[in-house]
């Protein structure tokens, strides 16, 4: 789960990481107060979860998809600017009126931030972060993430900050430092000082930088974060260090020890159908561009199902991992999401039961056909736990369903049905 930059900075501040003076505003009144307190020279930053914000553009909702295409086609000519005519997601201003001129279009209900990462709808702007401008001597990169292969936290740092670390790594891999963290020792300040020295920070900045790194590590562990990234942190002209940007990813699996992360979560940044799927306790749902609606158990099999459909010339309308199904209402909820997608021409159900019981899935499918008045052709492939009972349930229902025991065969049936564009015939019982 991602959180906003202003929230990341609240966490930083609470853990003793220096950040610029400022705060988040949603109304003009709040914005004015922040500018008066921290101005006159301020930075104004749109708060969205998507990346590429600075180079993205603030536009009216009805122009979002056109701007998205421009950005994809000719990025240099269309990218947002920090000052000047093309309004990006990060702006600078001097004085209350000039700053409010930047604030208003960002906080307008009708505005969207469009970047190469938002998709054609753009992202709604949840708040605007207003901060004091910092005079920068040099920019650096710092992040903590999880190194899965080694099962340890990994710190990545570079003296070439303020740009994408992937780009730095490509250009000059030696400019990127990788420091594995011993989780038993944690990350004491002396390790931080040693890293600060390796990064070439001047001597008076070594102690505060070391403390900043150690404190960021505390954010990482105390918050159950999967990522803490500061790009850039800077050496100011006054010789101190400061986190100018902040990105924190939280581990959804650990939300049970953080009150569900409710105070950090912003549902307006999430896809409504994906929220609906989550509330129905469905493992995972992602909308895609095709017309074959998929209901599958297990992430691996769900991906493999999409792969198979594509190999037979079909296009999946979604990725849906229903998780472990031991209640038929879960099947009905999953099918409700699929049926409500106007792009879906065929429904393909592929369940290989291990923990999941296939007979319960079959009962759910049969109930859903009536309850949701499903019109689209149904292709059902069941296998695994209680498969005989499952097949009997489908057969005895008398509902017009195409079935197959094998993945390839079933996928072919679904692709054919999508191409023929036929509707399901009514049941004959």
């Amino acid at each position: 789960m991602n959180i906003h930059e202003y929230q990341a900075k609240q966490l930083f501040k609470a853990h003793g990481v220096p950040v610029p003076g400022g705060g988040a505003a949603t109304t003009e009144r709040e914005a004015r107060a922040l500018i008066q307190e921290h101005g006159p020279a301020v930075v104004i930053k749109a708060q969205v979860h998507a990346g590429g914000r600075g180079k993205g553009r603030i536009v009216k909702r009805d122009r979002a998809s056109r701007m998205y295409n421009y950005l994809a086609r000719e990025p240099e000519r269309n990218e947002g600017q920090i000052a000047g005519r093309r309004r990006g997601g990060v702006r600078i201003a001097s004085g209350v009126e000039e700053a409010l001129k930047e604030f208003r279009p960002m906080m307008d209900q009708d505005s969207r931030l469009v970047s190469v990462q938002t998709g054609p709808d753009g992202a709604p702007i949840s708040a605007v972060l207003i901060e004091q401008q910092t005079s920068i001597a040099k920019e650096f990169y710092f992040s903590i993430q999880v190194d899965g292969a080694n099962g340890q936290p990994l710190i990545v740092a570079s003296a070439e900050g303020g740009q994408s670390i992937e780009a730095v790594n490509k250009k000059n891999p030696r400019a990127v430092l990788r420091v594995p963290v011993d989780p038993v020792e944690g990350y004491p300040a002396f390790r931080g000082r040693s890293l600060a020295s390796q990064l070439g920070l001047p001597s008076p900045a070594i102690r505060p930088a070391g403390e900043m790194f150690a404190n960021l590590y505390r954010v990482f562990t105390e918050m159950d974060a999967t990522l803490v990234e500061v790009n850039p942190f800077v050496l100011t002209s006054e010789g101190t260090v400061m986190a100018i940007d902040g990105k924190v990813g939280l581990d959804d699996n650990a939300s049970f020890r953080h009150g569900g992360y409710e105070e950090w979560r912003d549902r307006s940044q999430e896809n409504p159908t994906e929220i609906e799927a989550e509330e129905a306790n469905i493992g995972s749902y992602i909308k895609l561009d095709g017309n074959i609606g998929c209901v599958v158990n297990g992430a691996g099999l769900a991906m493999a199902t999409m792969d198979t459909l594509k190999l037979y010339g079909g296009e999946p309308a979604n990725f849906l991992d229903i998780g472990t199904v031991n209640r038929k209402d879960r099947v009905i909820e999953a099918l409700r999401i699929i049926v409500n997608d106007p792009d879906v021409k065929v429904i393909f159900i592929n369940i290989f039961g291990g923990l999941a019981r296939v007979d319960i899935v079959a009962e759910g499918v049969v109930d859903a056909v009536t309850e949701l008045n499903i019109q689209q052709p149904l292709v059902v492939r069941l296998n695994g736990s209680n498969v005989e009972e499952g097949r009997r349930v489908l057969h005895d229902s008398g509902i017009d369903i195409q079935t197959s025991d094998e993945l390839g065969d079933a996928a072919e049936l679904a692709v054919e049905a999508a191409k023929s564009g036929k509707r399901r015939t009514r049941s004959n019982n």
Partner: protein
Amino acid sequence: MSILLNNRTRLLIQGLGNEGQNQIRRSLDYGTKVVAGVHPGFRGGENFAYANHIFPVYATVTEAVEKTQANCSIIYVPAPGAADTILENIAAEVPLIVCITEGVPVHDMIRVRTALAGSKSKLIGPNCPGIIQPASKCRVGIHPPDVFMAGNVGVVSRSGTLVYEAVDQLTRAGIGQSTCVGVGGDPIIGEQQQAILRRFQNDPDTDAVVLIGEIGGLAEQAAAAYIKRSMTKPVVAFIAGATAPPGRRMGHAGAIIEGEAGTAEAKLAALEAAGAVISRSPAEIGSTMRRVLEEAGKYQAPGAAG
């Protein structure tokens, strides 16, 4: 008797909720030797009974191991307590720990991996279907037993349901399995694919291996490096997620495309260069393995005396 399990495996179960009980009944039906359970609410040898099977339940793993010489643990405990249970098994020096649980926090797994280093235990999972070995009738997990058949092909996969899918195709193609291992879909797991490949390479009961990977992470590249360096047995590989849109997380916490190394193309290229036979379609894993076995003269028709 192939890898990890054998007919001397003595299973200890943790997580005796409804689902754990269901699963353990199916393992007992399959023929697995379950010797004990652990439940903190139990004291000294209260019994769990099912059909004509009966085994004692203890309050701690140490006590259960002492009393029953259990040498393998299966964990069905819900996510908030899963890491604690794994740590308890490491402390009790259980040689093989299998954790099915989905949704274990990644920081918990950092602690587990630290405890595993230098310990006497090996961990499979979490977020995996477990291990099954048809010849010794040993089911340590959540597999649908009917699709499995004893034979000479090993299976290793990050995804659970894809183990079933691949095995179903193998069995239909007349190919039995030596041992099937789901290593788990999380970013931090116990044994990774290359460690399982090494076990299969050294196992006289395995003639070839199916390797099922997915997008995200670098585990398949590590597996490819091992295949290139040390593997003489044929490997058939499939990578799920070739058509997944970049940047989206597809269920498994480990399956995020991070840069080019995480893509299916990069993984397939590494595996192909290492000499693995690629099955582009997930529906052709069985037929590809059949061809590979026949070419190697290792295809054993089912029912043939062996």
